[in-house]
């Protein structure tokens, strides 16, 4: 009974998501733009959660996002690669970087890992700012995807999100779920149970970075302008982690809900404070850690459990 309800809800949501551009494209471009932003954020949130499932809490997703953005922009403007291919290449570059970083940070745990990833991300930002071929601090201009048509771009990122959702959902229903959870809760014991820890950790890193890189590449060709400050900004890394924590970690639905709620909230706040609206992320992060350890999804689950008991 519950399964059927969930399936119907899902179908309705997907249909609405696909239909949105046709309705909003001409009438309400603002909402379509907002929806597009939410989708980018959702991809990023899901990608962070994927890595978090192995216990690797990265502060570096801005790095993969930025790498995707710059790689795509450079390939398209300098090598005249078709844009869609450029975006894919952006994802690939992110994967390569992540594989390297993943192998290097294998032995680092918890906060050491986080700091190392942050350092990596900031190093990339400095490099992008200093080198001339990346445009220095002025950044790069990238040609528009799909002729700048907002509805078409929206559908493009929706496709990426659907892929991310499929991967996330698939992982959670396969043996990978057991491997990831075992590694996350107790890496040494997982190894003694036969789990190839190195392989799974690096794979998680690669998959996570792939989606973050794709999101970055997409961003470059939709917003048409990237610079080191924005592409590698800590705000991206922060958003990528607050959304899943807020919405519910290690699930597919949690990051999506978190991303949607946060992005809409951010939009509302942005009208009040021109900058500094990130304050809400800090506040939410602190409140969730202190009072809502399982995020919104956990809260909902425990409310349902209590409801059933009474």
């Amino acid at each position: 009974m519950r399964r059927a309800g969930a399936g119907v809800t899902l179908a309705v949501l997907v249909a609405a998501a696909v239909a949105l551009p046709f309705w909003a494209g001409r009438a309400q471009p603002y909402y379509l733009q907002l929806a597009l932003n939410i989708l980018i954020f959702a991809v990023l949130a899901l990608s962070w959660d994927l890595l978090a499932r192995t216990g690797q809490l990265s502060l570096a997703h801005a790095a993969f996002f930025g790498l995707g953005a710059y790689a795509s922009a450079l390939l398209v403007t300098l090598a005249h690669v078709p844009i869609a291919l450029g975006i894919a290449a952006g994802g690939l570059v992110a994967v390569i970087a992540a594989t390297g970083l993943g192998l290097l940070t294998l032995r680092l745990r918890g906060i050491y890992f986080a700091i190392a990833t942050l350092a990596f991300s900031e190093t990339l930002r400095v490099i992008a700012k200093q080198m001339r071929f990346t445009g220095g601090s002025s950044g790069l201009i990238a040609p528009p995807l799909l002729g700048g048509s907002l509805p078409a771009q929206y559908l493009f990122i929706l496709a990426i999100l659907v892929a991310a959702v499929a991967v996330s959902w698939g992982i959670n229903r396969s043996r990978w779920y057991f491997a990831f959870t075992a590694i996350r809760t107790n890496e040494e014991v997982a190894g003694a149970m036969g789990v190839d820890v190195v392989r799974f950790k690096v794979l998680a890193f690669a998959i996570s970075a792939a989606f973050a890189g794709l999101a970055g590449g997409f961003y470059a060709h939709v917003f048409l302008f990237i610079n080191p400050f924005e592409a590698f900004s800590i705000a991206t890394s922060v958003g990528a982690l607050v959304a899943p924590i807020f919405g519910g970690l290690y699930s597919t639905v949690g990051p999506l809900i978190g991303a949607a709620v946060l992005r809409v909230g951010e939009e509302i706040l942005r009208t009040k404070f021109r900058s500094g609206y990130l304050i809400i992320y800090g506040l939410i992060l602190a409140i969730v850690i202190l009072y809502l350890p399982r995020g919104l999804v956990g809260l909902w689950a425990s409310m349902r459990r209590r409801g059933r008991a009474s």
Partner: protein
Amino acid sequence: MGVDAAAWEGLVSLLALIDITKSFGGLVAIGDVSLEVRQDEILALIGPNGAGKSTTFNVISGLTPPDAGRIVFDNVDITTRKPHERARLGIGRTFQLMQPFHDMTVLENVMVGELFGHTTPKSIAAARRDAAEVCELAGIAALMARDVGELGVADLKRLEVARALATHPRLLLLDEVMAGLTPAEAARAVDMIRRIRSGGVTVLLIDHVMSGVRDLADRVTVLNFGRKIAEGPFDAVARDPAVIEAYLGPEGGSGS
């Protein structure tokens, strides 16, 4: 007590440690230790605290690479093999500080071993079935759907054993399974270990509960300060003056 590697040929030993040395920052945890575990036996590794027993387990299971020496399992040199490879070759272990996977149920904990502890991959459904059987064997079938956070000490120990058994090991390393158990629970543990052995699993165990060791062990190896100081049947070892001195100090004591 060094061992000539050539002399190992022909013995029915499942596991052989040859001249294993491991130091941590200048402190020698185990030095030149050689021991063998014979097929189908229950061997107990005992010694006072700090003797190097846990380090030995970690070296065998692959968590701690030795500084020197070789490890041979089932005629294969596994000295450089990673932990998960050793698990798949047939070495299973429990952990002294009970460390269940805490975001999963009891059954799921056991399924990890079923899913990844074998060289041929298993489907989730098959793993679930086999894991349920292992839970039966370990006496925790009633708890399969529970969260591990709800388990008491004795049940957690059984979960540890179940998890290790799920990898269908040929050699099972039991790390202080009887510690902290009531006499009745300890007796049940002894029973379970005997049943495990008759199922074709060789057992190497560390423990301080001497009554259990005496009941179970075919042979006993004693470590002190990282060196092997005695080996043999329990009664012989218990009377060995070197062993008595290790436990009670040079003033000695009147029996153990």
